[in-house]
């Protein structure tokens, strides 16, 4: 599970990229499927892959670029070694999420949506993990955490900085 944020990814390689694209390009409406597969392999969607996807699906480069930039999930460069996503939606706000997000920002010295200078941690907002009755919640490298409090946030930040 949670292959998307496994710390180790393959280095971008055109032949490998072409292989991944070919594996999925026969499916109907394959663009998102392929972009997900590329990101699962490389940790992001390399710019060089965009024209390759376009060619494989008989689309314009602009169309594929449009899809790639429309969706929040797709990255144009690798994330930090760890990714900490904090839910910022209403149920988590009601349960004290605002203060916890501010605490994480202060501890890491970055604002939501950015990566620490040493590339160790990417801190991101996420809008709902569906854990709204055990709020506030977070996802750390694909692992779910509910009932967040100051102690747990501090532990997560420490783990991320290791």
């Amino acid at each position, binding site marked *: 599970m949670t292959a998307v944020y496994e710390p180790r990814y393959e280095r971008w390689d055109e032949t490998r990229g072409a292989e991944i694209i070919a594996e999925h390009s026969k499916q109907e409406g394959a663009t998102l499927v392929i972009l997900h597969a590329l990101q699962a392999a490389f940790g992001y969607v390399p710019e060089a892959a965009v024209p390759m996807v376009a060619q494989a699906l008989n689309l314009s480069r602009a169309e594929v670029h*449009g899809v790639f930039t429309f969706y929040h999930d797709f990255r144009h460069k690798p994330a930090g070694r760890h990714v900490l996503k904090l839910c910022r939606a*209403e149920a988590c706000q009601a349960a004290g999420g605002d203060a916890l997000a501010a605490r994480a920002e202060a501890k890491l010295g970055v604002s939501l949506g950015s990566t620490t200078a040493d590339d160790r941690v990417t801190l991101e907002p996420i809008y709902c993990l569906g854990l709204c009755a*055990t709020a506030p919640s977070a996802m750390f490298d694909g692992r779910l955490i509910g009932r967040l409090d100051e102690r747990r946030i501090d532990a997560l930040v420490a783990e991320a900085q290791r």
Partner: protein
Amino acid sequence: MKMRIFVPRDAAAIAVGADEVATALEQVAAQRGLSIEIIRTGSRGLCWLEPMVEVATLKGRVAYGPVGPEDVASVFESMASNGSHPLQLGAADEIPWLKRQTRLTFARCGVIDPRSLDDYRTHGGYKGLARALSLGSDAILNEVTASGLRGRGGAGFPTGIKWKTVAQAKADRKFIVCNADEGDSGTFADRMIMEGDPFLVIEGMTTAGITVGATKGYIYIRSEYPHAVEAMNAAIAAAKRGGYLGDNIGGSSYSFDLEVRVGAGAYVCGEETSLLESLEGRRGLVRAKPPLPAHYGLFGKPTVINNVLSFAAIPFILAEGAKAYADFGMGRSRGTMPIQLAGNIRQGGLFETAFGVTLGELVDDIGGGTATGRPIRAVQVGGPLGAYFPRALFDTPFDYEAFAARDGLIGHGGIVVFDDSVDMRKQARFAMEFCAIESCGKCTPCRIGSTRGVETIEKIINGERVGENLALVEDLCNTMKFGSLCALGGFTPYPVLSALKHFREDFAPVPTTLQAAE
């Protein structure tokens, strides 16, 4: 006798330590040289008691919760010796919070092993499909229509009429699409049923396929739900092996196949036409309606697109008959609604009950008030596009029309509770901000209106010409409400206007002297 212990594998249970509890149970049993079987189930939905662990006894399953890894040794001792324990909750089925529910859709959730087709069938699964196969298309449509089932995604459109339209459409291909892009904060029923009883969703979609003459279905699941994706894929593979998907379903002449597709973090893709665009591999731009998806849907073909809970209600209706379902509920809201209690709430979780229960009963009585112990000030019903209700409206019954009459919506049945520390200006601002982040950009009222909305509410927060800017926000909300293409821009005014109307005191101009002191 081998002890059988049940530990949820639901994401909410895992997020509070269910996996660690399962591992610890195995270790403790091994240390004592006892042989146990751990069955990973879905969640019963009593989220404040998660991880809730159950053991099979001669008198039925006995529950313990919330069990942390540090409790495992003593809980195991109690299980093995039938001894008492402070975390023991008694017979699981007798827990009052569960007992007062009417579980039609969630009857099996938390009970069975969601990876086991046999377990599903032993507990009444595929009875509905068997009856559907014997009834044929017209009779199924009559049943679904007579049940009064309305779309559980939020719009409340009658499911029977939607299916009939697709059944009557002529085309070389038709599709069944399940909308599992459950992005509303405060909702998790789709996630729970996909993780806890995935065959139910498959059975509902298969029934739809048989009814309208579609042979292919897609389940579009948001990427924030990796456990649901895994559960659905495992169930689809098992259903194929068992002859319940593919050719000659259940020995009939019908064929139906299913595929999971994963979203990519766009809230707007929960809107059905945006979802179809996304499934086709494009940006999730909303389509203008008409044409309706029932006529021109996925890849331009007639398509049934329903929410997870709509499909999940179908097997009961077919197995027990339309009347058994329609006997529950009030007015034009028939059957049950899986309601989700969330946010700052003492007893949060999934509560399935007939329509008609009041908001006050739900949050005060069933939910037990706030987790912080402070008074409830506001309740947002129906996700980020739902209205904020104050205590004065807690007599509103849970019913599509009753909420609409009070300028609210029940949406997907999520209820988020806030205590008296909430600042409603912030909530109103967030509603606009969320719309600005998630707008697909196709129509102007939503794309531009939401950004102007954030700016104007910020001015109000800063005390700039408050009266004028309040009037401007109200005017802007009306433009968005009536001029937007879909519910994202069209419903964002609900939380904003309800905050203005019911919590006006938060928006009152602050005297300059006080402002400086802040």
